[in-house]
């Protein structure tokens, strides 16, 4: 029997798996990435787009930490759009349509450039477990890959079932195989499981679409890239089409509801409310007689089109009927029918902020199996799990992100303290400090962390240092120049003649003052380039709000520093209700910040727990 040794083994090469393997290897761990087919690495299994609101933040953060997704999306991007362009920079989100094939190739190339990372085509059939310690995986051919940390990113593999109308089949690629103990092994962990569902639309043959009838949506003229290292798109840029459902479409769907897997009672899983099937839209919003549908080309060298907005689990024949009622799609051909997939997820409250399973050593979960949806959410979790799996294997410090430093931190905290009730997707509204943690400063927030960990290459560090240097000197220039109200008026801006002198940075925080306006009055400012002056404007815009939030940020950071022992006994002190004792004993928060985020926890309760911890510490010392 063959035997191989690694520090970290990652199971599954979707977006979570790829980022996990990349992060672990860059953190210094000899890493194996095991996937059924190595050509699957980097596959976009759902819609051909990356980014969006909240999601774009995640991609930028992954990139600031040296991950794959931003670079791959930039290479594959065939239409870039910055969402919320008219709104404040804190809520803008970059998004791109991606060419599936280029994306896949790019991920594979980027992965192949990472030393220490070995991609294996094989089927994992079991985990190596001794008591509460995990130490590798067993492959189908009997090979044992021994590793100190195992990262499981198996997506919808647990009890996955695909539904098209009343036809369903097991979607678990390995689930039916009696020799495969992997699923049983996970079940034996005695975690809580839940059931979710998600759907896809039918894929269309673009050559059978009458594009001439459709409204077209081009990309931005000045594309916003994901990676801090990218300058401009490399792939040819295209437009997407827009069409709409109509009363005829709704009539067909309404008549056939009983044939839909979801409405026919074949599905128990909970679906995402932000991504309803077309059946759902027709039923729940019966007053609307039209819904928007985006026709997104899947790439430059394919005719396949992804009609975003009509995911469905109706039978194929009904799909064909209703799709043809849409303008421009009158004689369209379906390449692949839409379907719904149901799957089990583990309740992520069983995980630590490092994404390891509580109560066990060396086992990490990331991606859709934790109840999330989306490439970006999966990738970001992969990054966290990969870093910590490597830390565990190499005896390095674990890496945790927090709500105050990143969307990654917000997501991990939401998942591990609140759990999920529907597939979890990132929104900017989930981040209470969103004015501070923006897409434009993801590098300023996270690249220094990446540098400390040693996971970033020279090219990135150099680019970062150059930018920061420019930013700093420009900021000093502006802060060092002071204007009297009269001088400001001379620039053509109305301010109160209150005698208050204002620095260039303070002026820039005014809504109607752009950098170009004050530039002539500041010697040397004409040398500041566009990227830097734009960044200064963004910083100035939110400076006063960020100042206001400082207190909250400090309070959270302080609470994070008070860790609660894993075996902390909540039961034997007065002052906590039985309900809270039960809740805390189950949730096992890692620190006071996590504890205070649990439902029903009062400041008094956290004070009490703090008192007990201090008491125990004193006793320990004595």
């Amino acid at each position, binding site marked *: 029997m063959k035997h191989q040794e690694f520090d970290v083994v990652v199971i599954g090469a979707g977006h979570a798996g790829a980022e996990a393997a990349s992060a672990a290897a860059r953190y210094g761990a000899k890493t194996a990435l095991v996937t059924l087919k190595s050509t699957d690495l980097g596959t976009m299994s759902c819609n051909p787009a990356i980014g969006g609101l909240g999601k774009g933040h995640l991609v930028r953060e992954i990139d600031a930490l040296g991950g794959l997704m931003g670079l791959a999306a930039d290479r594959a991007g065939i239409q870039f759009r910055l969402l919320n362009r008219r709104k404040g920079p804190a809520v803008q989100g970059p998004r791109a349509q991606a060419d599936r094939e280029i994306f896949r190739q790019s991920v594979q190339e980027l992965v192949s450039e990472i030393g220490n990372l070995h991609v294996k085509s094989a089927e994992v059939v079991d985990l190596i477990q001794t008591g509460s310690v995990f130490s590798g995986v067993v492959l189908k051919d009997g090979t044992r890959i021994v590793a100190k940390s195992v990262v499981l990113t198996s997506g919808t593999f647990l009890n996955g079932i695909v539904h098209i109308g009343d036809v369903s089949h097991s979607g678990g690629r390995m689930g039916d195989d009696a020799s495969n103990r992997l699923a049983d092994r996970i079940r034996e962990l005695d975690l809580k499981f839940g059931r979710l569902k998600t759907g896809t639309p039918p894929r269309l043959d673009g050559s059978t679409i009458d594009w001439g009838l459709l409204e077209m949506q081009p990309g931005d003229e000045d594309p916003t890239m994901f990676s801090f290292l990218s300058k401009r798109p490399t792939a040819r840029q295209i437009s997407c089409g827009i069409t709409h459902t109509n009363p005829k479409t709704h009539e067909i769907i309404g008549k056939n509801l009983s044939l839909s897997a979801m409405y026919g009672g074949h599905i128990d899983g909970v679906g995402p409310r932000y991504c*309803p099937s077309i059946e759902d839209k027709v039923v729940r919003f019966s007053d609307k007689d039209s819904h928007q549908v985006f026709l997104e080309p899947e790439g430059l060298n394919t005719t396949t089109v992804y009609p975003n907005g009509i995911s469905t689990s109706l039978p194929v024949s009904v799909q064909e009927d209703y799709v043809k009622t849409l303008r421009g799609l009158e004689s369209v051909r379906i390449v692949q029918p839409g379907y719904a997939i149901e799957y089990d997820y583990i309740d992520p409250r069983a995980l630590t902020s490092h994404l390891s399973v509580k109560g066990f050593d060396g086992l990490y979960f990331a991606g859709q199996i934790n109840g999330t949806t989306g490439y970006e959410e999966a990738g970001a979790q992969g990054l966290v799990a990969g870093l910590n799996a490597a830390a565990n294997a190499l005896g390095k410090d674990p890496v945790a992100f927090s709500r105050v430093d990143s969307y990654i931190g917000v997501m991990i905290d939401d998942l591990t303290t609140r759990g999920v009730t529907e597939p979890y997707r990132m929104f900017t509204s989930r981040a209470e400090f969103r004015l501070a943690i923006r897409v434009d400063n993801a590098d300023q927030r996270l690249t220094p962390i990446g540098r400390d960990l040693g996971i970033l290459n020279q090219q990135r560090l150099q680019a970062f240092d150059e930018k920061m240097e420019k930013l700093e000197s420009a900021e000093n220039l502006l802060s060092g120049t002071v204007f009297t109200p009269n001088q400001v008026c001379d620039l053509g801006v109305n301010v109160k003649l209150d005698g208050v002198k204002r620095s260039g940075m303070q002026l820039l925080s005014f809504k109607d003052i752009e950098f170009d306006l004050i530039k002539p009055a500041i010697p040397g400012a004409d040398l500041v380039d566009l990227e830097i002056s734009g960044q200064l404007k963004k910083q100035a815009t939110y400076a006063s709000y960020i100042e206001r939030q400082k207190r909250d940020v400090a309070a959270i950071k302080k609470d994070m520093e008070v860790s609660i022992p894993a075996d902390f006994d909540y039961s034997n002190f007065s002052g906590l209700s039985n309900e809270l004792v039960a809740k805390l004993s189950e949730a096992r928060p890692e620190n006071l910040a996590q504890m205070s985020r649990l439902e029903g926890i009062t400041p008094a309760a956290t004070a009490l727990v703090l008192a007990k911890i201090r008491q125990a510490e004193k006793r320990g010392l004595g």
Partner: protein
Amino acid sequence: MDTIFALASAPGKAGVSVIRISGTDAKTAGVCLSGGELPKPRQSGLRILKRQSGEHLDQALVLVFDAGASFTGEDVVEFQVHGSVAVVSAVLDELSKIPGLRMAEPGEFTRRALENGCMDLTQVEALSDLIESETEAQRKQALRVLSGAIGQKVDIWRSKIVRSAALLEATIDFADEDVPVDVTDEVKELLQAVINSIESELCGLDAAERVRTGFEVAIVGPPNAGKSTLLNYLAGRDAAITSEFAGTTRDVIEVQMDIGGYSVTLLDTAGVRETDDQVEKIGVERALSRAKLADLRIHLVLLGESPEIDVEESDIILTAKDDLGCENGISGLTGFGVVSLLDHIRVTLSTLVSGSSLVNRERHKIALRQSLSFLREALMALESGVGEYDLVSEELRSASRNLEALMGRVDVENLLDEIFLNFCVGK
């Protein structure tokens, strides 16, 4: 670290009340109110406390403790003022207007003491009980507020704030979907309504000259157990109609009185029984809900029976109509047992006293005022339209955080619920 303040002694009528301020701005705040130099640390000095407007608040003994040599480990200033509810309320109110100061949460002084290593750990056990009762008292107070007339208003504020925030977030987080692009007018209207309502509420609070405070003690029991007779005896007048017929008392009757220095509202309630009489039925429901929210219940039971409604730990159980006089009996007719009942009430209230309704009401008032200023900021930012929705939304978040004590936490999930209920998102 921000500076916190609170009433540190037992609330209610007392000889002296202690107001504690702790944090980096404590001394600044002390100077602000006492209008001059503070006494040297650990020495007391008599000062006149004044409002910013110059209005005289009270004469107070002022004490200063330096960081490292105080209860919390931070700079601490204490005012010993006359133990009047109105004075304490006014001083707290004035403190809340100083930037950087806020009212302490229950247990927060202790928490700071712990964090700064200034806490004698043997005190921790005793503290947990204190924190528990404070928290419980706050919870009760919040419930009482919500079940009252203001409760309906708070409900409306909450729904309007949630709706406004949801509209804004929908345009932000679902910008590339089929949702409205400009919600300025609708949000403006919603926020203006909330602002007007909070303003009039605050007006009412400020105008109330007599600060109603104190405890509620409910007399409960089966019909015709002599509850009203007892109330009348205690009140020294016929506040409630009594008769030999069961079910005479229909509505809740309130009598204000002073028991051992505490201001007490005695509640006479309808006798609890199953009934087909619609009016009496409502009376029984009211009796039950008021009794539940009261600080203390006197359960009158007939000889050999036990109370029909839930008894809480500190409640008093007495045998009703005990005109003959035996142990644990009471009679509103002969007055037997009344003296020991009053004594019992006084003792019980003094143990409950750490949870003050005054502090809570003051807290609510401060919260209302602060959220009002955030709401006004939000309204201003709305003038810039779509471009500043991120800032409007931030102001709203701050406003609702301040109202949390009144209306509960507005979580992102509440906003998402509202969004998904109203808009068909998902492309």
